[in-house]
């Protein structure tokens, strides 16, 4: 076991053994271990296969920047692409490696590595062009998708997440050394503060390395626990652990996701993650830095790791990935690894530094000399070699000689980058630092403060000054931090991006992006092909894409490109950093807006009656409406609709129309307002009468229709289409407030306050007289298109005589909480007259027979009232209404506009379909001029054959002529263009 003495490690609970499975084999780790640290404890160094070439890969880092070690968590709904370097283990966890078949050790796909010379950058764009355009979609893409890639998408999605909002004065991102000092200085101030850290342990670099010996004369551990305790006990600071800030939006709006089950199996039905939406006046970014790697031949072999990650495995997890590692560096960040190894009684097999001896830190130099560590200054690693793991490296020393060193492990450091991802998301600007060779935050765009290494401030001795200077805006007491270090306080680096291989062959690979298998050769090729702008280069080569977004390598790519183009890195620029910082699950984003809560379901007040009477429902907007009522399991929808429709024509039917939008309009100027909103004129209407009305957009197109009931000049009730209710109310509000604020008028939705039942059919009067015996329903007392208020057993009721079926009919409006009583009454009294409920499909059929349109089905936002033949509904004497002027626009008075007509098949056995095109020729040839299309089509139980409504060019003048309907099989059906009315053309039934 690669273990250190665990007794002095406070992060790992070594008395608590945890069993987990990796690729079917059981291993043990300890509580506190990540998958990576537990596997390294078991000497597992091969964790996955790479994206494109299926090369063996190991753990490259010890944190969120990991490009390689992605695994599938089988025990959590098969969650793919989980970073093994941060995911904590728990008892019974099942993990699988990704992108390999049949096993991780023997992966057939690794043949790609041998064929790799034929997969250069842009390979897919160049190669899979022919022989036929369908080849890409049908053959190439499915094969490539199978061979390349990361984890498999989970089959089910059951994770539960919730959203939480915060409004605070200051948000501190990152609870490392600087974050903790900042938070501590804000204790008991007037500010409300949120301190967020991604880890379950605060302290950052103090936990992960031996750089700092003491803080204010306390050991780092003591200082952290004391500080955290103070913060936890404070009244004004809230601490969020295990929470990753993924997004930094405009107006200091942060999004962070909290893992609620770190180191334990997520419980079914419990919230797995919380998405925090944070509004804050000030953001303090103290989220640290990320170490970068170096490019040389085979720099991807398992057994190669970043220096600071190696040290983190030792300090944080009490595991040493190798007892005899070689170290290769070009900067001072490797010093503390050497110190940590020697402190624990180990020493590196060799220390290789690309810097010359005099540029290496004196303390480091002494340490190496004192411990007899082989030292190579001015030297570089030319390549790493081995099969499935590192076996040897080639080192070019200062004299130019090449030495071979046998080793199973290599630690790398290519420099450090401030973690500027969030800073640039906030639109802050970066500046290239020629001395530290990295991009650093320069100008904040929002109220953002950066502290410590996140601000590019790599000098430990400058921490106190920086904090006091930058937090001065809060008017708090200056802090005094006294740090004692084990290593030098300053950061020094010498430029090195890539070491060229000893012998260049077509198979030699120096990686620049480990996750996407991009090599430095690909970068060269892309530039030689003209992709020399960094954004183009990124997309052409896929460099720094993927789940890690090139966190350890993107700056190296800029360095290599700048050398190739002979430009400064600042001239090359960076690609844009976009949210999220690291992948977050869709479950977290969706929160509670999933499954049945995705969209509200609206139900009629008598919804339960429909269920117990076997209704089949359809979705209309957010509403659930009965579609049809089958009498038994065997009855099809077609049969049910024919039966229901026939029954309405012969006896009577009742429809639950409660979902229709209802708007009440009141005010001294209600009449003037209604005259402006609708096309019709309501001035001469008598109180107690009603009218079918159209609402247009300002472009003159039909937007909605409904029946308007006039109670008085100061009081109207309008109905709208089911789906258009909110839009119509919104439109009324908009015009009342913004265009005609001088009008005294108010409106509100009463859709849910009233249920609506539509009874229609020749026997309607017999039934309704029984239900409401005190009301006189004779033609004289209750004519068509009038309404009356009545009371029924203390229930106020409005009865409107109107019809959407073409039969005589009444609509009953009743308060929702009494709706069921009235509905059941109607059903019971109607039985003897053959009354049956009918659904929306029969309603559609019956209205189409009568030629009544449905807005949104027979119209599509490009149809005027004139196109529908509804000229009579336009109040021509009115000076103004919505869209009036548009009815005489050059486009709306065009002769060849599409107009509503009826369509009948010549052969009565032919079936038409909605969406079919109407054409003039029997033969179909391309290009085929089309007149228009069928908008509604039904089989009429009354006529005994198919009929349709259609909108076709110049339709009104084509009535009486023959045409053809095209079918998808390129056949044609002979049809006749007729008036858009098929039933009771004389309108005798409505007023009977």
């Amino acid at each position: 076991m690669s273990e250190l003495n665990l007794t002095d490690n406070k992060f790992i609970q070594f008395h608590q053994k945890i069993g987990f499975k990796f690729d079917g084999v059981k291993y043990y780790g300890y509580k506190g271990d990540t998958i990576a640290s537990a596997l390294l404890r078991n000497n597992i160094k091969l964790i996955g296969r790479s994206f494109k070439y299926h090369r063996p890969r190991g753990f490259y880092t010890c944190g969120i920047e990991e490009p390689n070690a992605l695994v599938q968590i089988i025990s959590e709904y098969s969650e793919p692409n989980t970073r093994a370097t941060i995911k904590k283990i728990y008892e019974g966890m099942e993990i699988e490696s990704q992108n390999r078949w049949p096993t991780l050790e023997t992966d057939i796909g690794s043949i790609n590595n041998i064929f790799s010379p034929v997969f250069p950058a842009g390979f897919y764009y160049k190669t899979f062009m022919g022989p036929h355009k369908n080849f890409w979609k049908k053959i190439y893409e499915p094969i490539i998708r199978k061979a390349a890639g990361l984890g498999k998408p989970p089959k089910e999605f059951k994770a539960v997440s919730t959203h939480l909002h915060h409004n605070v004065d200051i948000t501190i991102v990152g609870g490392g050394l600087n974050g903790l000092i900042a938070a501590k200085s804000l204790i008991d101030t007037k500010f409300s503060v949120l301190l967020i850290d991604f880890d379950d342990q605060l302290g950052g670099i103090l936990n992960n390395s031996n750089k700092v010996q003491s803080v204010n004369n306390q050991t780092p551990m003591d200082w952290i626990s004391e500080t955290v305790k103070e913060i936890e006990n404070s009244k004004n600071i809230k601490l969020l652990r295990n929470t990753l800030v993924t997004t930094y939006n405009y107006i200091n709006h942060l999004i962070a996701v909290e893992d609620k089950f770190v180191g334990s199996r997520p419980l079914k039905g419990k919230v797995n993650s919380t998405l925090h939406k944070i509004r804050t006046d000030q953001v303090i970014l103290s989220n640290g830095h990320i170490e970068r790697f170096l490019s040389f031949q085979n720099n991807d072999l398992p057994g190669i790791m970043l220096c600071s990650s190696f040290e983190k495995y030792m300090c944080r997890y009490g595991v040493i990935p190798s007892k005899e590692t070689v170290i290769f560096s070009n900067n001072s960040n490797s010093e503390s690894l050497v110190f940590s190894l020697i402190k624990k009684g180990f020493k590196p097999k060799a220390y290789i530094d690309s810097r010359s001896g005099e540029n290496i830190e004196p303390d480091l130099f002494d340490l190496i000399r004192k411990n007899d560590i082989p030292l190579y200054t001015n030297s570089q690693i030319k390549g790493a070699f081995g099969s499935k793991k590192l076996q040897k490296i080639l080192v070019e020393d200062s004299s130019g000689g090449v030495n071979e060193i046998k080793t199973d492990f290599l630690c790398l450091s290519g420099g450090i980058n401030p973690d500027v991802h969030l800073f640039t998301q906030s639109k802050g600007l970066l500046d290239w630092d020629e001395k530290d060779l990295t991009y650093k935050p320069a100008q904040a765009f929002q109220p953002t403060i950066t502290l410590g290494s996140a601000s590019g401030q790599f000098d430990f001795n400058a921490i106190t000054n920086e904090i006091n200077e930058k937090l001065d805006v809060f008017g708090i007491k200056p802090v005094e931090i006294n740090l004692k270090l084990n290593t030098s306080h300053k950061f020094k680096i010498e430029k090195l991006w890539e070491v060229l291989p000893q012998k260049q062959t077509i198979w030699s690979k120096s990686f620049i992006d480990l996750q996407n298998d991009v090599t430095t050769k690909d970068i060269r090729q892309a530039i030689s092909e003209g992709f020399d702008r960094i954004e183009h280069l990124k997309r052409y080569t896929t460099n720094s894409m993927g789940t890690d977004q090139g966190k350890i390598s993107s700056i190296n790519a800029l360095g290599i490109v700048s050398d190739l183009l002979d430009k400064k890195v600042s001239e090359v620029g960076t690609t844009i950093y976009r949210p999220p910082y690291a992948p977050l699950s869709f479950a977290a984003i969706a929160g509670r807006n999933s499954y049945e809560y995705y969209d509200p379901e609206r139900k009629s007040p008598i919804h339960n009656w429909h269920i117990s009477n076997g209704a089949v429902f359809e979705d209309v907007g957010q509403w659930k409406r009965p579609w049809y009522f089958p009498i038994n399991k065997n009855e099809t929808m077609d049969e049910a609709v024919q039966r229901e429709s026939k029954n309405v024509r012969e006896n009577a039917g009742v429809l639950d129309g409660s979902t229709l939008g209802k708007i009440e309009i009141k005010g001294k100027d209600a009449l003037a307002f209604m005259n402006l909103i609708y096309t019709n004129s309501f001035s001469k209407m008598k109180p107690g009468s009603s009218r079918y009305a159209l609402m247009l957009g300002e472009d003159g197109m039909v937007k909605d229709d409904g029946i308007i009931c006039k109670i008085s000049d100061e009081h109207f009730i309008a109905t709208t289409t089911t789906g258009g209710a909110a839009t119509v109310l919104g439109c009324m509000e908009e015009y009342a407030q913004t265009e005609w604020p001088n009008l005294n008028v108010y409106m509100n939705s009463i859709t849910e306050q009233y249920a609506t039942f539509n009874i229609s059919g020749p026997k309607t009067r017999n039934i309704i007289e029984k239900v409401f015996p005190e009301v006189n329903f004779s033609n004289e007392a209750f004519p068509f298109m009038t309404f009356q208020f009545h009371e029924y057993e203390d229930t106020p009721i409005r009865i409107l005589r109107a019809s959407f079926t073409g039969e005589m009919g009444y609509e009953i409006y009743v308060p929702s909480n009494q709706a069921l009583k009235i509905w059941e009454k109607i059903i019971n009294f109607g039985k003897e007259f053959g009354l049956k409920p009918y659904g929306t499909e029969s309603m559609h059929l019956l209205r189409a027979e009568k030629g009544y349109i449905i807005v949104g089905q027979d119209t599509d936002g490009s149809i005027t009232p004139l196109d529908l033949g509804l000229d009579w509904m336009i109040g021509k004497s009115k000076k103004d209404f919505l869209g009036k002027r548009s009815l005489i626009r050059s486009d709306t008075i065009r002769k060849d506009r599409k107009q509503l007509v009826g369509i009948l098949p010549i052969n009565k056995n032919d079936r038409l379909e909605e969406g079919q095109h109407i054409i003039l020729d029997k033969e179909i040839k391309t290009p085929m001029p089309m007149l228009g299309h069928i908008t509604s089509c039904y089989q009429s139980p009354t006529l005994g054959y198919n009929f349709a409504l259609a909108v076709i060019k110049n339709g009104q003048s084509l009535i009486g002529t023959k045409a053809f309907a095209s079918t998808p099989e390129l056949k044609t059906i002979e049809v006749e263009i007729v008036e858009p009315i098929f039933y009771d053309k004389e309108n005798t039934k409505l007023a009977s």
Partner: protein
Amino acid sequence: MLIIDCPYCGPRDQSEFSNGGEAHVKRPDGSADIGDREWGEYVFIRANPKGIFYERWVHSHGCRKWFNCVRDTSTDEILKIYKIDEERPKLDSFKNNVKTPSGEPNLGSGNFTVKK
């Protein structure tokens, strides 16, 4: 996500509001005397400037009230919010307080480095 200071309810999250496009577009009355061009411009043409923009918002998931707003479209900074019946604030009373974040880089499609 903006924070919008509804003149009736106070500061609220953008998700409670709907944008109503350009403000102070006068609706001609619908009579036939209005020329095709004038009417067509009212119905179809709206300004879409980069910079200071007068626009309408409605607190649709709140008080349902419409109000006007002056916003810098290049920075998303809200410069003023005023009620629908208040006078339109003069353009020269606003300065671009925040530098444009896009900075119009001369390199690449996006480049957040400080321009020299």
